[in-house]
Structure formats: C-alpha cells, structure tokens
C-alpha cells in the first residue's frame, strides 16, 4: 500500500494537510520518497493515527511530542531487540540456553536485592 498526502488526509480525517506536512518536516513521520512527493505506507498511517491520539485526544503539547515519540520508539526498538535475541538464543544448544537463563535470573535476583535495600 502506498498513499500520497491527500489520500492520507482523506483516510485519517483527524489530520490536516498542514499538520501532516509539519510532522514530516519534523521527522515524526518518515514516508518514503516517491516520484510525485511523499509515499506513505501502513506503518506511517498507523503512526499518524498515534500522533493524532497523542496530539488531539490527549492534548499533548507539540514540544513534548518528540520526547514521547523517542521513548515510544526506543521501547519498540528494545522489544524487537529482545525478541531477536531470544530467538537467537532458542537456536542454541540446551546447555547454553540453560546457562544463559540461569545467569539472567541470578542478575535479576541480585538487582532486586539491591533495589529492595533489604
């Protein structure tokens, strides 16, 4: 799926063309470049809806948006990394997996003890 600016505005009725262009200029939405201007795919459209929710429903001020977006993006990045790491780990021999899991649990217990301040 690929949509130009006008189809996006028609699809996501909460966003105006002006806002959309601003969001792209700010780098909050990063459409692919097409021969006739920006080309948005479903990831971009879902992100535009998220921006509408943050900006309009939750009335988040424009200057707070980059902070929130970066946190959200970082969260997703970390989750994906964790998922990939887990998958890579699953392909390891049984004893390697066990040893990694044991080490991980050990660290976690350790950090609870520290945080808990016993």
């Amino acid at each position, binding site marked *: *799926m*690929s949509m130009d600016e006008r189809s996006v505005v028609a699809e*996501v*009725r*909460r966003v105006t063309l002006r806002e959309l262009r601003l969001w792209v200029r700010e780098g909050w939405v*990063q*459409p*692919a*470049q*097409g*021969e006739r201007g920006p*080309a948005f*795919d*479903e*990831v971009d459209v*879902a*992100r535009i*809806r*998220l921006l*509408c929710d943050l900006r*309009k*429903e939750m009335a988040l001020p424009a200057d707070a948006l980059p902070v929130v977006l*970066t946190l*959200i*993006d*970082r969260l*997703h*990045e970390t*989750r*994906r*990394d964790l*998922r990939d*790491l887990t998958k890579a780990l699953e392909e390891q021999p049984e004893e390697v997996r066990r040893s990694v899991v044991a080490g991980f649990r050990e660290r976690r217990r350790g950090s609870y003890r520290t945080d808990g301040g016993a």
Partner: protein
Amino acid sequence: MSDDPYEILGVPKTASHDEIKKAYRKLAKALHPDLHPDDAGKKAEFQAVSAAYGLLGDPEKRKRFDAGEIDASGQERPERHYYHQYAGQDAGRRYDPGMGAQEYEDAADFFSDLFGRRSRSGGGDYREAFHTRGPDLRYHLEVDFLDAVRGAKRSVTMPNGKAIEISIPAGVHDGQTLRLRGKGGAGFGEGPPGDALVTIGVLSHPVFTRDGDDIEMELPITLDEAVLGAKVDVPTISGTVSMSVPKGASSGRRLRLKGKGIVRASGKAGDQNVRLKIVLPDRMDGELEELAKRWREHSDFEPRKELRRQT
C-alpha cells in the same frame, strides 16, 4: 431507518453540541414510550434517537465517530491497526531512534558489537561514536505492469539528491522492497553508507493480470472462430504469438501458452492462461440471424440441463 446518527437526530454534521442536545430533547419529548404506551414504531424510533444521542452527545465519542474510528453503534472499527502492531515487526525499524553505543559501554565487547547499529558492516577499526553507518533512505517507485513482469532498469533521484540506477528484477511483486546496499545516506567519519530501500508499487494493466508467475488474460473471439476453430494472434508480455483456438471452443475455456508467463532470472518460467470469450458484433447482420434461426429449428442442444438438475 437510517443508521447515520446525524440523520436520526435530523442535524447537520456541523451542528454544535447545543444544537444536538436541543434536537434530541425535542425528539425525545415527541417519541417517549411513556407517552405512547402501545406504539412499537415510536418506541423503536425513540431507542434509535437515544443511541444516536449517546454517540453524538458525547464530544469524545462524536469526534471518534467523525474520524471513522467507531461505527454508529459505538463499536471500534476493525480497520484500526494500532501503531504498536507495526512497530513490533521489522517494518517498524525505520523509526528506531538508534541506541548510542555508550549505553552498553560496560558490557562485553561482543555485546556492544551485537547492538552497535552504528558499526554494522564496517571493517575493523572504528570508534563507534565518531564513525557511524549512514542512514537508510526509503524510496517508493511505481512501475508499469509490463516493467514489473519483464524486469526493467530505472533511474531515480533519491531524497538526498543522488541519482541511482535501479534494476527491477522480472516478476517483482506489488509492495516488495529492494535493498540496494551502500546506496543510502553517506556514513559519518569512516562509517559505511546506509542502504537504499526501494518499495515497488505495481500499476495494473488493462489486459493482463497476474497469478504468481502466470499471466492471465481474456481473449475475445468471434462466433465463427469458436465454431470452426482458428489461428489467432494473442498478445503476451513478450510480444504477439499465434495460438490455435480449437474447434467448438466455448466462452470461458482456458488455454495455456506454456512458458509465456514471467521468466525468472533462474530461467524458470510461468505460463500465460488465455480465457476465451465469444463476442458478437455490435450490430447483428441478417445473414447471422438467418443462420441462427435455421440452427434453432433442428438443434436439441441444452446447455442449461446441468443447471436445472443441480438447482
């Protein structure tokens, strides 16, 4: 009854909150079931009006209805895909903020290397903070159906102003992404350049459609060609070929042109499937009518026999 809540309340889409409230009160007074104990129609109308007001009287719900996110019954529309559903997949990577390598500086070398996005493909000696890989650049390229099935070369100007040559492989499908290594943004320091990611949009063709590596098309033939059989010219994606229409071919019959579909780089080729369609002239001539009349007199052909038996 319409299920558009605006129509039910009889207000324009631009109505203010007060106008909606007023319209609702007026209708509620006129339709209230306690005022019309035995009128089922009025009761149903009253319920519809109440439901419409439940939606439009709530500014939050009204906004979401206007935006097409919930339907008239207040249900979430199924189309809404939340961002996290995409961000969890690899397509979401484009919005990664990119983790500074310093976040892992107390970790073992191999681990910082593992997550060191900035040092992905470079050779040996780099300090990650100063030598980083360039960004990937995304481009969307619309190609004609024939270019997509036959393969083509296109030159495009990337967002950074650089022109690059793109080889579209034969059989590329709609939505496919081509990765051109090193054709993205320049690296920083001694970091390598990023990649160009080109998603392909395939435009439709008035004659050909595609089913995997096979090409489908409909071929109009005349009545005499269908009755007597004929050799006809058929367009394919690689030029016109001659094909035999067998004697007595019906509309809908499928003929296969072997190897005339998409030819992959491996040499593997799909077929072209031709669907016959018998077409009569726009204006019927007397001779054809005479022929049909004579044929009808002695023919006992019943093409709808099966149909009758099965229904």
